[in-house]
């Protein structure tokens, strides 16, 4: 049963290319941005953004993040979602090289665009970021015939 939910979480992540990235500013005020993500292990989520973007500035002040991955086009009542929390930062040095290899590979495969170090360093407009997820949950709809409790809730899964 738990294994089933973990599989479900993986399939939701696999089926979506954007995640809602939740950050907070120094005062704790929330912010949400959709970002295109690359992951190969469901725990490290990579994306590129401008260092001037609000979520990038928020991360510099406060590395904690929340992430939701879902399909906003499904009919009401059919929602599937994965919730995560962890920490994120801009990658530099050896971590940047390792992260970029993953991001570049997934980006080439999915959208046919490659990224090199020169795209995320120095004078480039972008930086590479990575969220490391410590906990995952899946949405259990209130009307789920097996697990529903009448009200939507989340159940923790291990990925």
């Amino acid at each position, binding site marked *: 049963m738990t294994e089933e939910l973990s599989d479900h979480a993986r399939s939701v992540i696999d089926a979506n290319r954007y995640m809602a990235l939740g950050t907070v500013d120094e005062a704790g005020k929330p912010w949400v941005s*959709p970002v295109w993500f690359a992951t190969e292990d469901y725990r490290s989520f990579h994306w590129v953004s401008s260092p001037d973007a609000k979520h990038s500035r928020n991360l510099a002040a406060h590395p904690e993040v*929340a992430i939701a991955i879902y399909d906003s086009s499904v009919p009401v009542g059919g929602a599937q979602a994965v919730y995560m*929390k962890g920490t994120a930062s801009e990658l530099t040095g050896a971590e940047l090289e390792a992260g970029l290899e993953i991001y570049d590979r997934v980006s080439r495969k999915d959208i046919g665009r490659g990224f090199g170090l020169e795209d995320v360093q120095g004078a480039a407009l972008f930086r590479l970021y990575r969220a490391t997820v410590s906990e995952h949950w899946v949405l259990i709809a209130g009307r789920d015939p097996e697990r529903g409790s009448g*009200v939507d*809730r989340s159940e923790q899964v291990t990925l």
Partner: protein
Amino acid sequence: MTDDLSDLARSVIDATKYMALGTADEAGHPWVSPVWFATVDRRDFHWVSGHETRHSRNLEARQEIALAIYDPSAAGAVYISGTAKELTGAELDEGIEIFGRLSRTNAGRDWKLADVQPPSEHRLYRATADEYYVLIRGADTERGRGVDHRERVEL
């Protein structure tokens, strides 16, 4: 030009059923939850949630919220900041009328006052937008800057 962007924001909101609701707890830990929303004026966004869910508890501690509304390809995206709360009293009567009507029309499910009051676990919430922004892709032929950015719009 700004009118075009306002229209873009309206069309993204109108075409999308779920929003990513960003909240934070007392200590400032962020949380994001997708919720099905109902709006008639694109300023007040209504949703129903269990009062024990994390985002509902966060709202008790902190009313500031952020919203992101986008389709699965994120061809268009709207960012909103504002405040949100559980509705009670006259605001609840007004809110459930809107939410119930849109839910019947768009989702075939009825919601009445009794469904969002004790002993039900559900409550009705409303986010009120203060600021709106739209996503401009870096490659946008007219407004792109090479890197994605946001532009503020009035709705």
